[in-house]
């Protein structure tokens, strides 16, 4: 861990073998780099300043543990403070109170409110066995109410019937009444996107909150948000007093500094994170992981967990057996490509690895990217079943057919076949050495070299 930032700090502390407590000048020099790292991660400037001041006070006089460098020590202090600032692990939604309990969703335009509403509805229904009703109060955006209705159908969560022309506050009232009469536990209120500076719309949201007395008002924030996070957080906090934050699009290739800005300015816990567009793409917030991400240190823990989740154990066992018996073929390779895609493709994987921002250039230079993987997969998919089982069948005319079918070229097909043969050799060796290795390293191990 701590590699990217530590590496930078290494330069500052180069030649510094002295041990003992961190001095004022050590800390000041190191924190200058930390400041840049935080700003690069889109943490808002006032939040960065405050954070640096706090860490400064904390770090001076800290004993440098024997086995680490002063740079690593500073990073450790920074990381710990970041985790602490980001808040508690897995803060659950507050659903106490007489049913129906209302949850109000607010945020800027396009931040992901409607999608998140449906995801939360789905989660409460599936995981917590709650009876949930959803209602869209968005009378602004074209087809917004329709959108929630469709998502409700996908999630298996009922939505309040749409009445054209009804005003948001009236919809909220009707939703609460319907929920009461229908014996619902929870009523989720999705609202229109609004700018924090739009007085009329902020007042409208406040009126909805008045009527519905929500147990939770969730501020939905795009993880890609930059410096504006502070102003958004300030205004929404003043006007609507949110009780929690949801960060969406955490599945992006993003450092996610907005999480820190939000947490620091709203004072609210980050309750959930959105990690995709599908109904189940909602996760708990893990401060330690997000802290590592913000500092650009990758997120090895998440990678490991994700790998464990996505890799189908049965498939892995089957693959292992095939490798052992020397039967690894193009079908297996295509399978591996699919597996990689499930994990978010090359970039999805790389996003979890430390120091990876800079490694990307290197990968690009080697032309190892998702497009290459996609092209290679297309080549395999253009082969017949028998060809995939036995690449020796591939003569010139077959290769031409495959190239045309996959929108690639014969040299590309040749390259893949060559790589595959090399890989199959490696596979045989791996199989002989230790079958567990394959299960563990199947995916990265199979990335062919360009």
């Amino acid at each position: 861990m701590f590699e990217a930032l530590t590496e930078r700090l290494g330069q500052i502390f180069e030649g510094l073998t002295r041990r003992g407590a961190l001095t004022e000048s050590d800390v000041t020099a190191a924190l200058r780099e930390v400041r840049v790292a935080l700003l690069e991660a889109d943490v808002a400037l006032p939040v960065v300043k405050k954070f640096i001041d706090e860490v400064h006070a904390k770090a001076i006089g800290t004993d440098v543990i024997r086995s680490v460098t002063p740079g690593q020590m500073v990073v450790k202090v920074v990381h710990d403070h970041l985790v602490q600032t980001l808040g508690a692990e897995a803060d659950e939604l507050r659903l106490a109170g007489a049913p129906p309990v209302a949850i109000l969703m607010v945020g800027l335009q396009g931040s992901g409110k409607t999608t998140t509403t449906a995801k939360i509805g789905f989660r409460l229904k599936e995981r917590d066995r709650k009876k949930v009703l959803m209602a869209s109060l968005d009378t602004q955006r074209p087809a917004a109410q329709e959108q929630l209705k469709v998502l409700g159908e996908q999630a298996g969560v009922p939505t309040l019937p749409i009445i054209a022309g009804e005003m948001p506050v009236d919809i909220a009232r009707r939703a609460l009444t319907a929920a009461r009469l229908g014996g619902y536990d929870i009523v989720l209120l999705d609202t229109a996107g609004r700018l924090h500076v739009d007085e009329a719309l902020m007042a409208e949201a406040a009126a909805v909150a008045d009527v519905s007395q929500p147990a939770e008002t969730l501020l939905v924030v795009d993880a890609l948000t930059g410096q504006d996070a502070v102003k958004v957080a300030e205004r929404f906090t003043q006007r609507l007093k949110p009780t929690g934050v949801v960060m969406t699009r955490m599945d992006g290739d993003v450092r996610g500094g907005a999480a820190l800005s939000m947490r620091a300015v709203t004072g609210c816990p980050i309750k959930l994170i959105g990690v995709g567009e599908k109904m189940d793409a909602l996760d708990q917030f893990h401060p330690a992981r997000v802290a590592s991400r913000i500092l650009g240190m990758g997120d090895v823990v998440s990678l490991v967990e994700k790998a464990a989740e996505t890799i189908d154990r049965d498939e892995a066992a089957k693959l292992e057996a095939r490798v052992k018996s020397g039967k690894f073929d193009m079908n297996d390779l295509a399978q591996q490509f699919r597996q990689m895609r499930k994990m978010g493709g090359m970039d999805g994987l790389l996003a979890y690895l430390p120091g990876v921002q800079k490694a990307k250039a290197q990968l690009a230079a080697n032309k190892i990217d998702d497009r290459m993987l996609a092209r290679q997969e297309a080549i395999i998919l253009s082969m017949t079943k028998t060809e995939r089982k036995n690449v020796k069948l591939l003569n010139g005319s077959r290769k031409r057919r495959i190239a045309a079918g996959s929108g690639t070229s014969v040299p590309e097909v040749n390259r893949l076949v060559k790589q595959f043969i090399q890989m199959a050799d490696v596979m045989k060796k791996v199989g002989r050495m230790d079958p567990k290795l394959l299960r563990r390293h199947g995916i990265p191990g199979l990335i062919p070299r360009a």
Partner: protein
Amino acid sequence: MSDPRGAGVRPGLLARLKAGLARSASTFSDAIASALGSGRLDQATLDQLEEGLIAADLGVPTAAALIAGLKEERLGKEASADEVRAVLAGRIAARLAPLARPLAPDPARKPHVILVAGVNGTGKTTTIGKLAARFKAEGHRVVLAAADTFRAAAIEQLKVWSDRAGATFVAGAVGGDPAGVAFEALTRAMAEGADILIVDTAGRLQNKAALMEELAKIVRVLKRLEPSAPHDVVLVLDATTGQNAIGQVEVFQSVGAVSGLIMTKLDGTARGGVLVAIAEKFKLPIHAIGVGETIEDLQPFEADSFARALTGV
């Protein structure tokens, strides 16, 4: 042998990853002597200016470079903060001005095809509605294609905009092949002799390989019918987005040959300063800005006012 790092093929990848870790030099150093006499440009003022730029999302390297240039020239010279600010705005504007270029459909194309792409929720569909209305008002016959077949009610949303703008609307089945919709829409637009076809696409994060491939396929399929299409590939950026926007341009550019940018949501407090870094790096035309949710809330991009807003002049 069971040490995960000790054997197998994985070290190949990790070694290569590590080999690529170029050391990053810090671009900014503020170890400069303290403030000079009053009335002269001093370091404190420069720092303040730099912070202002960072707070407007210019990013540390771009902000630092701008300030460094300023410092070299003006440090210690007589200048009020406001004058310096104006100079700074002027410099930013000078860089952006050559890129300010409205979308200009080629009348020789029947139709001129505009593909609109971007990450989720940036404002693609809304912007298409605004563009369609503008082109209609200019007397063009416009067709809109609902090639976002994924997001719930995306088709209905574009339909509403299409009706508002008075465009012809082409959609396919929910969950269908987006490239198929684009193909059908282009076929129809050609048959009807339409002037402009605008293709709406689903939002996609740039690190989703399969979705980026889907976009590449839309481009390929359009080209099958009309090799010169799409004539414009517009990437829609959200002004509230921070430094990630640079990566967005980079990846969309490599997949879909982005030809120009539109930045939305500049009616809020976000200043969209990342556009300065993007302009520097990619030199892509900036066609327009979104300043609200109604059909007329699309304005031509003006380098001057954009730069002034960034520097707080």
